[in-house]
């Protein structure tokens, strides 16, 4: 059994892990940058070590500092949380070399899943449905036209070396394809020094659906059902739910089997999330795997009753999944999470600073994961998430109503937060209907703009 865990993270997830450890009798070591000296993860851990100046690169992302802290504190395991070093395979390797248990999958698996095309090939081999595509480089315009014909329009061209939208083009007909192919290739060459492209089916209005997975170190895998994460702005999730209204119990069970088989093949262990796009016909396609605990893990906890962070710790201690989660949990009720960010609710500009008033909602079915407090400071150096507000109801309707009530009682002063934005989303008919996709926020913000214009007249 693990005796002492260093938490290589900050904010609410650091406190989340500290709480789980405390409840299990495991000692905790917080690390912190100079900007986080007065943070709650520092206060509530058994020990705390300053590892560097405010900038993440010099503190939370500083591998030698983190390892060194684990060594001087005598920690026998490291929990990386999400973000920061959580999907850094090198860090996991250094942990292994330093005889410190990394609480996550083996570095080889993290590395494999980190490379998109390898991940795609791996999943395809394991019979996970993937987005139809070229399965490799599309070397010429001619090849591109052929592929597009077999995949069917619309298709999307992507840079092999790419990311962030560059070297990317959506093609809706064979007429426009040649010119777009050239543009994408040139752009990719300029941006990444590599003009090679591949092709995928393009989904106009996809949903983002992801499956939560637990796997032990003895080859046992379990799927804990899905989350619906389509409410995003610029690929940043804002609201997540479990379960998805789109997934039938039968689909859930079938996906569970597919996932079980594929992760066993890969040799995965600990917690992970498999992300899919769902097309307009309800067909889902693998996009990527996240090899860590996720921000939105709480909604799965609320509907399954499984404590995912405790499960991570027990898996890392070598326990068997059958002891941790004896039987496939039923999905009970509906849970929704709002990410409360220190951002302007309309302009989305970051709003660091000192919190003067902080009243957190409570009561039946309301969970708040936060490391903030009245008089606390949101530093400018890190991401803007200050709290997660999670509501659980017997169905989606009750969960939404609960969220509206809880948002109205969540009072933050001194900085801007996304609370008013969430209040508007939860009053929006399209959101409430559940019939949305990842383009929801674009439409919603457009509607808001129109509304404001109309009001100004």
């Amino acid at each position, binding site marked *: 059994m693990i005796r002492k865990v260093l938490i290589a993270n900050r904010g609410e997830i650091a406190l989340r892990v500290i709480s789980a450890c405390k409840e299990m009798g495991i000692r905790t070591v*917080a690390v912190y940058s100079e900007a986080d000296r007065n943070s709650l993860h520092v206060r509530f851990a058994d020990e705390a070590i300053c590892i560097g100046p405010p900038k993440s690169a010099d503190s939370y992302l500083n591998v*030698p500092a983190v390892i060194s802290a684990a060594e001087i504190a005598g920690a026998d395991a490291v929990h990386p949380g999400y973000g920061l070093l959580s999907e850094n395979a090198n860090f996991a390797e250094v942990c292994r070399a330093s005889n410190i248990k990394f609480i996550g999958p083996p570095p080889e698996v993290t590395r494999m899943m980190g490379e998109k095309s390898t991940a795609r090939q791996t999943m395809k081999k394991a019979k996970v449905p993937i987005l139809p595509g070229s399965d490799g480089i599309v070397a010429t315009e001619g090849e591109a036209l052929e592929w597009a014909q077999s995949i069917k329009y619309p298709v999307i061209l992507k840079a092999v070396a790419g990311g962030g939208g560059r070297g990317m083009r959506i093609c809706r007909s064979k007429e426009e394809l040649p010119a777009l192919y050239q543009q994408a290739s040139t752009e990719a060459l300029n941006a990444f020094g590599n003009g090679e492209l591949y092709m995928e089916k393009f989904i106009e209005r996809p949903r983002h659906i992801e499956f939560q997975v637990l796997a032990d170190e003895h080859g046992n895998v379990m799927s804990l059902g899905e989350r619906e994460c389509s409410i995003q702005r610029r690929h940043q999730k804002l609201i997540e739910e479990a379960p998805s209204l789109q997934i039938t119990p039968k689909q859930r069970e079938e996906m569970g089997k597919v996932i079980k088989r594929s992760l066993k093949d890969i040799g995965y262990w600990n917690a992970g999330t498999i992300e899919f796009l769902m097309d307009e016909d309800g067909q889902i396609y693998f996009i990527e795997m996240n090899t860590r605990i996720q921000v939105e893990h709480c909604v799965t906890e609320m509907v399954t009753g499984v404590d995912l962070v405790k499960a991570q710790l027990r898996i890392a201690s070598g326990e068997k999944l059958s002891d941790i989660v004896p039987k496939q949990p039923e999905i009970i009720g509906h849970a929704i999470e709002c990410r409360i960010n220190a951002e302007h609710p309309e302009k989305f500009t970051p709003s660091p600073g000192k919190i003067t008033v902080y009243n957190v909602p409570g009561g039946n079915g309301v969970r708040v994961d936060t490391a903030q407090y*009245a008089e606390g400071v949101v530093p400018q150096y890190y991401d803007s998430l200050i709290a997660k507000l999670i509501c659980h109801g017997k169905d989606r309707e009750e969960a939404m109503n609960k969220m509206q009530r809880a948002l109205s009682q969540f009072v933050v002063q001194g900085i801007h937060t996304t609370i008013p934005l969430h209040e508007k989303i939860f009053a929006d008919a399209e959101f409430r209907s559940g019939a949305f996709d990842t383009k929801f926020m674009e439409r919603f913000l457009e509607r808001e703009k129109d509304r404001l214009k109309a009001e100004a007249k």
Partner: protein
Amino acid sequence: MDGNDLKELRELVEFLKASGVEEFEMERPDLKVGLKFAGETPVAAATPAGFDMAQLAALMAAQRGSAPAPAAVAAPAASAPAAVVPAAEVDPHAGAHIVKSPIVGTFYDAPSPDAEVFVKVGDQVEAGKVLCIVEAMKLMNEIESDAAGEIVKVLVKPGQPVEYGQPLFAIKAR
């Protein structure tokens, strides 16, 4: 009471007030000051936010007892929701230049267990002189002085774990 005294007193009072101090007492052979601010008294021992002990120490330059050496890394920086910095961390060498650890690790005052120490109290050092080793991940990192002067105090013990920014040496700068 001369003007200079008054000015200093003023600075002290302003500082105390800004720091949220409620009562204050100071005694020196030549001067004794005590004061109490008006206002609500919190029941629990709530320390004021953002109390800059180093600044106070500097203001009081000449008289303070020697505080215990900074506790090992093991003690969590006590920081309530009220953002309290523990009073124990009074910098006992205000005015002196402090060489801090640039990394997390284990402090050693000599290159090997049986070797001579790099420096001892009373030594004169130049900037760039190696003062100690901080071991991190099996690497021996030599820490150099960033000031020239006399070593007034070694603030940590050999084998002691140190965190980032932890004071190692006090140097009376030239």
